[in-house]
């Protein structure tokens, strides 16, 4: 396990190095002055610019500038936003929890529905159920998520009036922003309407999470299906059948557990895809998350914010990826062996 951890740590450090390199180079690639791009100080006087230049080592060569940048990162200084002039790390800390909340709920829903349906399809392989599930999941995988979001709002918010169409929680409730994750904040607040606020927040998160979850769920369907089919073909299942175990016992006691292990490995890989979908969904549902913030920064040409947001978001995705790798390795000792290149 130790070598596995060390390899993962090594990969993490290398990835962070590349990501910071990428975000650092963005300040040169974006139009405009490099110093302003990296710091966000659009209104700085010439004297302030000189002091800023010293912080970012603009007089030295590129390597020293990079180290100065990484140094600032370690101190939590990602510059200030060109548009709002607020500290970017504060903005990210404000918005990232909302995205974490949304993506995790969406991931949960995708796994909750995708995996069992995939198993069912595998068990009914070559029968009508399998084909129907495959066709529906193909369509689910092909729907553009922004279109789906709009239709979902039209049907569920307006025509049926079941669920709200925007935001994290109704503005009628005054919940202090402590962590940024609504459910935790509600529990921590001292509002007299805690239970209603909880229900309201659930109603708000449900629709966007389902919209996000659709495409990943279809992928989980396929993954679970192929994992389950592989497991069902395996020798130990045949042995179990030969032994006379009932169908139910085979599935619940042996097949699912083994198939799950295969599926978990790919969950981490899917997460990047899920976050991308979440970014677009956040815009449609006005969800106050980092995806929407990043896209708005792009509209406003706020280069510093784009750099910081990209770094934060990619780091977040990678951390989740590594966490799922750990979970997978914990469940499956075979995975702890070294894998080349990946």
């Amino acid at each position, binding site marked *: 396990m130790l070598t596995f951890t060390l390899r993962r740590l090594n990969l993490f450090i290398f990835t962070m190095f590349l990501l910071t390199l990428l975000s650092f180079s963005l300040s040169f690639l974006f139009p405009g002055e490099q110093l302003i791009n990296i710091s966000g100080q659009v209104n700085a006087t010439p004297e302030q610019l000189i002091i800023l230049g010293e912080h970012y080592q603009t007089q030295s060569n590129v390597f020293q500038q990079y180290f100065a940048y990484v140094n600032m990162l370690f101190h939590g200084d990602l510059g200030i936003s060109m548009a709002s002039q607020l500290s970017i790390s504060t903005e990210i800390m404000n918005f990232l929890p909302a995205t974490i909340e949304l993506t995790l709920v969406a991931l949960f829903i995708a796994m909750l529905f995708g995996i069992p349906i995939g198993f069912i399809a595998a068990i009914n392989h070559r029968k009508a159920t399998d084909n129907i599930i495959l066709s529906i999941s193909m369509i689910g995988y092909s729907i553009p998520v922004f279109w789906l979001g709009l239709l979902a709002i039209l049907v569920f918010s307006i025509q049926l009036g079941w669920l709200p169409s925007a935001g994290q929680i109704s*503005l009628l409730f005054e919940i202090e922003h402590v962590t940024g994750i609504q459910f935790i904040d509600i529990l921590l607040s001292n509002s007299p309407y805690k239970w209603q606020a909880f*229900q309201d927040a659930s109603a708000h998160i449900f629709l966007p999470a389902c919209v996000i979850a659709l495409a990943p769920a279809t992928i989980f369907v396929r993954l679970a299906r192929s994992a389950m089919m592989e497991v069902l073909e395996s020798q130990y299942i045949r042995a179990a059948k030969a032994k006379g175990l009932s169908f139910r016992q085979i599935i619940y006691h042996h097949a699912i557990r083994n198939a799950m292990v295969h599926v978990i490995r790919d969950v981490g890989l899917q997460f990047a895809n899920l976050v991308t979908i979440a970014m677009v969904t956040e815009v449609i549902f006005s969800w106050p998350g980092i995806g929407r913030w990043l896209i708005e920064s792009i509209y406003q040409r706020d280069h510093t914010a784009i750099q910081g947001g990209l770094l934060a978001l990619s780091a977040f995705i990678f951390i989740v990826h590594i966490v799922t790798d750990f979970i997978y390795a914990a469940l499956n000792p075979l995975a702890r062996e070294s894998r080349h290149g990946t």
Partner: protein
Amino acid sequence: MSILAVKQHIFKAMLLPFLCVISACNTENDKSLSNHSIVYCSEGSPESFNPQTVTSGTTIDATSNQLYNRLISFRGEQNTIAPSLAKSWHVTRDGKMITFYLRKDVAFHQTNYFTPTRFFNADDVLFSFNRILSAEHPFHQVSGGKYPFFQSVSFSNVVQSIEKINDYTIRFKFKYADSSILANIASDFAVILSKEYADALVLKNIKREIDTLPIGTGPFKLKEYRPGAYIRYAPHQDYWDKPSSLEQLIFDITPSSIGRLTKLLAGECDVIAFPIAHEKIKSKPELELEEVTSFNVGYLGFNTVKPPFNNVNVRQAVALAVNKQAIIDTVYQSKADMAHSLLPKTSWAYNKSTLAQTYDLSEAKKLLVDAGFPDGFTMNLWALPVQRAYNPDAITMAKLIQADLKKIGIKVLIENSLDMGSFLEQLSKGEHQSVLLGWSADHFDPDNFFTPLLSCSSAKSGNNRTFWCNEDFDDLLQQALETTNVTQRKRFYSRALAIISTEVPLIPIAHSKRFQARKNIVKGEFLSPFGGIDFSKASKN
């Protein structure tokens, strides 16, 4: 316990949050919360919480009538001037002196950042106006030192001095008589701030907060502001007039018009600004669409100090090439009047005989050739990024104009990437060649259409987006202000309108109505033909 049973338990446990969500749909418990709150979907974030420093309608809507009061205000069908913080006032015969007698027992807001220890008195009036008038005033430069409305009506030129006679009497002395001065003091911009608060801020050395954490005497006080997201107002319990029956007033900032409509249809907002899809709203029995004949004009303004629009022939050429009717049909969906002049028909200074631009492409081409642009040219057109009553969709309008001007060989580049604050800032620096903007009058006096928009002083303050400065025009305006004789004033204004027609610093496009949509459980009047919305009388069934 068998694994199967465990799995069944797990399944039931997962069902619980699901049921949670479903039951949230029909909750009766938070009805009480929504019964005493109004959520208003507004179209943008306010630039500041002090109307003195801005002219943007979005900021006025959010602040002026909610947080503050003025000395006098407009009331009633005829929009006559009525008492507010001033119980009564006296104007001398020559119009050079006005004495205001102030109301007693008016309390300022008490919030978690300020507690007042005294009632409103003349010191507050002195502070609020001297801040604007006197460049040496300690608060003059706070928040940039710009008071665009007051600069555009030459307020500091007209006012000679303000004297405190006693704690509840204050006297304005003017250098010359100005028939629009009372209207200007009653406008949404002339709000009264708290001197006590200002003094406290000076001690803590955070003078900026007078404009960002406001204290006023109005029916609501600021509770929380999240930029770009929402503004939370709580009712002012000790309001001198009838306090609001609401427990909360929330501005839900939603720049997208379809977003506001969605929230109205889904029940998340009670009232929305600048609604679209009027037929859809009218078809729903639980919603109501109201309209007010607004005193406004949408225009295409030229930056007359930059080429190519420093050439009057070029301006006239463009004016002849713009198809206004198409714009009215598309952008305003035929719910506006085509503008023949700057003034709408409802103004008493409106002149039928003012020459309006016709739509004549060949004449336009000829003028271009005369002006030295036989092959046309490239220009930029700045389109305002928010919806206003005078222009519900500047981007579509810009695209129509782009297509129109292509026919005479002019290439138009549309600029609309900024947010409203940056947009107005860049405009006042003159970064544009042409702009789609408009003006909603602040009061009934026709001067309000001319001076803030096209006068020389307004060009200096940056509010005159055309930077056009014409001495004859300014003279006419001055003369019209110096007399109270309506016939004479009408004559001056017709001549002024004629100058605008020939010089074309801007092309007036449409006078529109201002609409608002609400749930019909929301009661009360809050739209006015000019000025910002006012929730003080709003309530819910």
